[in-house]
């Protein structure tokens, strides 16, 4: 049952107030929230269910990885994909929020000294905290993939936060042409740990890192959520070792726990 991932701080419900909400390109927002009371510190990969306070439409909190978490302050980076996130994006400073978290198991401290982070667009969010938290101790390389033109404000923002981040775009208009998995496969090898976050198809592809001698591949999954704490089974996934809840058994899983044994050629 215990996945051995980064130990969770116990989640709590907190009221918060929006400090700022900045556009990062057309469709993304960087927001900061001041909490009424501190939560447990959150590890990279842990998340919060974020919603507007006091209204029931939209009803559910949206799971967002905290990119920075201080004592009473949290930051998030999110994309507007639907009703809840567009609502969150429309809020102005001072707006009252409700947050549940930190939820789930984050990424555990890397065992080796070399870490490769692979992100598809907003999959970069959980890594933003990791990069600063790991600091000098670990040699971190980050690889990011975006569709292409139009994503400049987003990639510039990421480059600012993670100097040296390697850019990939489908059409080659930003950074390398290609996808972040291919790019990352050129870098992995024995002794390097790999963390991935992004579309599920991308995460599955990361299993190819095992062929390159990489021994530890961790991935952060997404599912629609209800409770966020393991009670409602909305976020269940079928894995080789049975049903798992993304919210408490994950969202960070060992690649093999989710996708089974990698094919080796």
């Amino acid at each position, binding site marked *: 049952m215990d996945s051995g991932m980064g130990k969770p701080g*116990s*989640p*709590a*419900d907190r009221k918060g107030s929006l400090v700022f909400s900045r556009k990062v390109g057309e469709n993304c927002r960087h927001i900061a929230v001041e909490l009424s009371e501190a939560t447990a510190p959150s590890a990279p990969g842990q998340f919060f269910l974020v*919603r507007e306070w006091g209204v*029931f*439409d*939209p*009803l*559910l*909190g949206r799971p967002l990885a905290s990119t920075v978490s201080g004592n009473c302050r949290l930051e998030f980076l999110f994309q507007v994909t639907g*009703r*809840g996130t567009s609502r969150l994006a429309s809020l102005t400073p001072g707006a009252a929020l*409700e947050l*549940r978290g930190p939820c789930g198991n984050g990424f555990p401290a890397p065992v080796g000294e070399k870490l490769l982070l692979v992100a598809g667009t907003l999959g970069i969010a959980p890594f933003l905290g990791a990069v600063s938290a790991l600091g000098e101790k670990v040699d971190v390389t980050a690889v990011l993939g975006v569709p292409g033109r139009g994503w400049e404000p987003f990639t510039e923002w990421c480059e600012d936060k993670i100097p040296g981040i390697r850019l990939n775009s489908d059409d080659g208009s930003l950074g390398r042409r290609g996808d972040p998995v291919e790019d990352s496969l050129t870098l992995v090898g024995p002794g390097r740990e790999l963390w991935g976050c992004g579309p599920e198809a991308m995460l599955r592809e990361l299993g190819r890192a095992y062929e390159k001698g990489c021994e530890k591949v961790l991935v952060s999954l997404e599912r*629609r*959520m*209800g*409770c*966020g*704490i*393991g*009670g*409602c*089974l*909305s*976020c*269940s996934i*079928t894995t080789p070792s049975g*049903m798992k809840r993304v919210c*408490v058994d994950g969202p960070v899983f060992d690649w093999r726990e989710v996708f089974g044994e990698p094919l080796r050629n």
Partner: protein
Amino acid sequence: MSPFGTSLRTEVGGVDLDTPVIVASGVWPMDPALWPEGSLDGVGAVCSKGLTLKPRDGNPGCRIVETYSGVLNSIGLQNSGVDHFVAQELSAFSFAGRPIIVNIAFETLDDLVETVEVLKGSALKISALELNVSCPNVTRGGMTWGIHPESLESAVTAARRAWNGILWVKLSPQAPSVGEFAELSQGCGAEAVVVGNTWLGMAIDNERERPFFENVFAGLSGPAVFPLALRAVWEAAGAVEIPVIGCGGISRPQDALSMILAGASAVEVGTALFVDSRLPASICRELERHLREKGLSSVGDLVGRARR
């Protein structure tokens, strides 16, 4: 110990409760270690996830969709089976220190009886059995038990024979007449009825031009259904002598009070916990405030007061 006064103590359908606020089935972890800070405050009892005789993986595909002030769910009774529950989950669950209500679902009457037999073997205390005849998310069994008088009768009778502890029946709001079905349950020996479960709804993914859920239909819960559930509780409470436990859409403290004024002896809260883990405590404060304001001494005095 409950931080709330004795004015909230009550006995409902054979179960002694420190407060009349019960955590509904299927929405909250059975392991109290997973409960958010402060969420046990004010909780009078906890219902287990719906159990079945054999383990079930639940439904494939999308399991939850948000609607206007509501959620549709199609979990499909994922659970580890009653044996595993008794052997493993019940002991952690008991740590909550609250009466445990075991919610069970079944496809056949034989399943039902066998499940009850396993529960009888439990060394740990089960305060009541909550017979779920109202789950809309399984193709066999589930709600079909709760929308035909004859099948409801056979199920409650079978459960009553097999189980000598306290028996609650969780009715379906899809029943043609909630009052009649509550009466039927009473007649078959239930100590209380829970009114009700989720409401049959659906959602369509317009881009893919098909239903979101593999089973097409799913169960609607949350704030949206509150006015409907309140009406169902009113109807049931007018039809039976046994206690009615109100369930459906309770989202703010005032809603629980309304349910009790309508005739519920206790309430179950479900979906609202997704957004407010401290709702049980807030409900207790609201009940205490109202008792003080009206100069009453016990929550029992509030039951059905809006019917006078």
